[in-house]
């Protein structure tokens, strides 16, 4: 892994740096060991693949959101875009062509994300405020599309995406892996990725180096919207039901996962794979509670406490600039 993710490390790696870069992996390993000791049914290929499969839509969003956050932005509208893509996917699958959905869903997400980016850069408003507002608008659109009702989508030509599998591996898992690899390459091997790091790390320096910073930002938000669209399509295909409220709260889960992965909320540093690890960590906690049959109240509490610890550790490794 000779990537820009390793760039954030150095020969003099402090405890904080280590916590930021690998903390999420360490906690995952601890949970894996702990849960397999407690329960026989945990450490099976089926259960683990199931966990990944269920988190695939969220993980896809987290991959793309990582780019937005590294670029110094913030996106609160991914849940709403997920909702718009869901109902649009349902409507298109039922009224038009089920195969068209695979292209149309991400494309709609891309457009909505581009709108975010254009408003943010065009008016120079902070992305937090813009996406907070557009998330309400997008959610409203989602409700308008279906008139507030659900759209059942029981079409074999469509549900293969969410439910089909090769051997034991779901298509959704394969889609996630491909998506993650593409985003890792995008971030670490391309000039675009470099520019994202530069825009988030020091926007003025990027401008004075000839980087079209606004274009870079618009692209990160567009990619994030596209990911939310794709995630929406996969989710609808899986449950055979499109609902306008789908994805409510998902934007916060995605942000939490990215932060758990040690990506700096200040921008300029981070890695895609760690955000996916962040999603899996949250899914593991979930799964652990199900297996142990503990009061689900403690689930959110535990996740929250772990996020606080992760952020505190990362902050101690981020004292520079």
């Amino acid at each position, binding site marked *: 892994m*000779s990537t*820009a993710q*390793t*760039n*954030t490390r*150095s*020969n*003099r790696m*402090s405890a904080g740096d280590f916590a930021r870069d690998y903390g999420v992996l360490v906690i995952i390993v601890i949970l894996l060991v702990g849960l397999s000791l407690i329960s026989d049914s945990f450490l099976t290929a089926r259960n683990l693949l199931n966990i990944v499969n269920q988190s695939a839509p969220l993980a896809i969003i987290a991959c793309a959101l990582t780019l937005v956050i590294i670029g110094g932005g913030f996106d609160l509208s991914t849940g709403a875009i997920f909702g718009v893509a869901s109902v649009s996917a349902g409507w298109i699958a039922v009224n038009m062509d089920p195969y068209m959905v695979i292209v149309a869903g991400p494309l709609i997400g891309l457009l909505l994300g581009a709108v975010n980016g254009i408003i943010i850069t065009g008016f120079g408003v902070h992305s937090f405020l813009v996406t907070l507002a557009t998330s309400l608008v997008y959610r409203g659109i989602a409700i308008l599309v279906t008139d507030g009702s659900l759209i059942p989508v029981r079409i074999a030509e469509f549900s293969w995406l969410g439910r089909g599998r090769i051997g034991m591996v779901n298509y959704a898992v394969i889609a996630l892996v491909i998506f993650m690899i593409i985003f890792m390459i995008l971030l670490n*091997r*391309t*000039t*675009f990725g*470099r*520019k994202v*790091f*530069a825009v*988030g*790390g*020091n926007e*003025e*320096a*990027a*401008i*004075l*180096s*000839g*980087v*079209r910073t606004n274009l870079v930002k618009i692209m990160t938000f567009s990619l994030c919207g596209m990911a939310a669209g794709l995630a929406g399509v996969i989710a609808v295909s899986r449950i055979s039901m499109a609902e306008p409220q789908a994805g409510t709260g998902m934007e916060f889960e995605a942000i939490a996962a990215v932060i758990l992965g040690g990506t*700096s909320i200040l*921008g*300029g*540093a981070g890695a895609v794979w760690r955000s996916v690890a962040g999603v899996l960590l949250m899914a593991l906690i979930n799964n652990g509670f199900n297996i142990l049959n503990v009061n689900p109240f403690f689930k959110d509490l535990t996740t929250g406490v772990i996020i606080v610890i992760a952020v505190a550790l990362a902050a101690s490794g981020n004292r*520079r*600039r």
Partner: protein
Amino acid sequence: MTSKDIAVRVQGVAKSFGGTRILNDITIDFEKGSVHALVGENGAGKSSVGKIVGGYYAADEGAVEVFGQTVTRFSPRDALGRGIAMIHQELQLVPELTVLENVFLGLESNIRGFLSKGDLERFHTLEKTCDFGLDPHTRIADMRIAERQKVEIMRAIAREARVIIMDEPTSSLTEDEAERLHQLIARLKAREVTVIYVSHFLDHILANCDRVTVMRDGHVIRTDEMHGETKQSLVDSMLGEASEISWPALPTPPARQYAAAVEMEGVSTQTGLSDITLKVRPGEIVGLIGLVGSGRSEVGRALFGADPITAGTYSINGIRQDKRLNVRRAIAQGLAFVPEDRRKQGLVLTQVTRPNVSLASLGSIASFGFINKARERERTQRMIDHFGIVPGKIDGEVAYYSGGNQQKVLLSKWAVEKPRLLILDEPSRGVDIGARQRIHEFIIEMAAAGVAVLLISSELEEVINLSHRGYLMNDGRIFAEADCRALTVEDALNRIFREQGSAPRSKEVSQA
């Protein structure tokens, strides 16, 4: 001397960061009412000593005594309680608040917690001591760095500090402003205030300090009375071996009829430039000579397409530029700009050396948007070797580098693909002597290789000695052109002051 006359005594202090020892067995006595200079190359540890006295760092070993009492808790707040205030290289003010609010931050006149009148009066009393001519109601965000520094100093005096640590106080001041700062220091001294003066400017130190401690590699080399010291004696101690303060020989300038790399005629901008006419030829080093606020940096920015031109004509390589000129187009035509604030405008400190070196020329190491890492590494290594960047790691953490090495990384960004015009704004500010000499050699190298160089520096000696030709600037205008080989610093200053006296003022000039 009795211990009664000692304001601050540092005894056997050591400090490490992440396994690297930055201070070893430091013992210094700072006498009451004396101006004590700390000198040394960047990384010698002089700022760190200041930060330990100021409470920003805790000493790992040894003791710090303030007015006879041993310090047990290190924090800026505790230090302030003991009468010690530190004025930083990077100023610590609240940009959204006014001068008045910043000066009395935490000391506001109040009645049981509710703000009351009286601050303005206290401000005027302070102003009598300081004589800075600051408007109490200006927002810090709207002020220049030099003026912000005055606010910091007022803040320290408002807290009745008995020891004031000044870290590079004159680095962003004009000669005139520096002179006024030194007059203020003399007044503070008369009030028994101790000043710890950390600086690179040996002239200022020689003229204004009573005692000096020379440091090298985290050790104290010697502490002596200033009387009898010379620039050379200080430099010798700093470097550890005799070394000349010298200026490199300039390459032969191009013939006058040689076509210009850039040419401006009657250019004005919204940033305060008016009627700027200049040209820089390939192989020529042209200096902009003026005080802070005269518009030097603004000329650099306008040439680079960073600020739009509102009137006049501008040609790059003989091609007339239009309204669409921007940084991107300027770079595409071979322009390079090293801005004055390397941390804020130059480097991406969240990233390591390699991406910083590549940022302005990603196109030439990529195909179809994919970066050729082998080529990038090779190129970065070449720059590290060329400039002697330390640590010489391709993926070194620039954020932790010394000022000089950070500056070399920034220069690498623009040297890695040879530019046609290189604009350098304060290329040697806040760097150590070794790095400074290397940077000067680099400027000569570039000119010798046929690059047109525009040099901007607040240090008149530097810009005059390194330029073939210079433009004298005041108040956003070029008022004269000079052959730098026949110009002295005194000459230039006199002409600038004369110009200031005669020129009609279009706006308030800070150094008037």
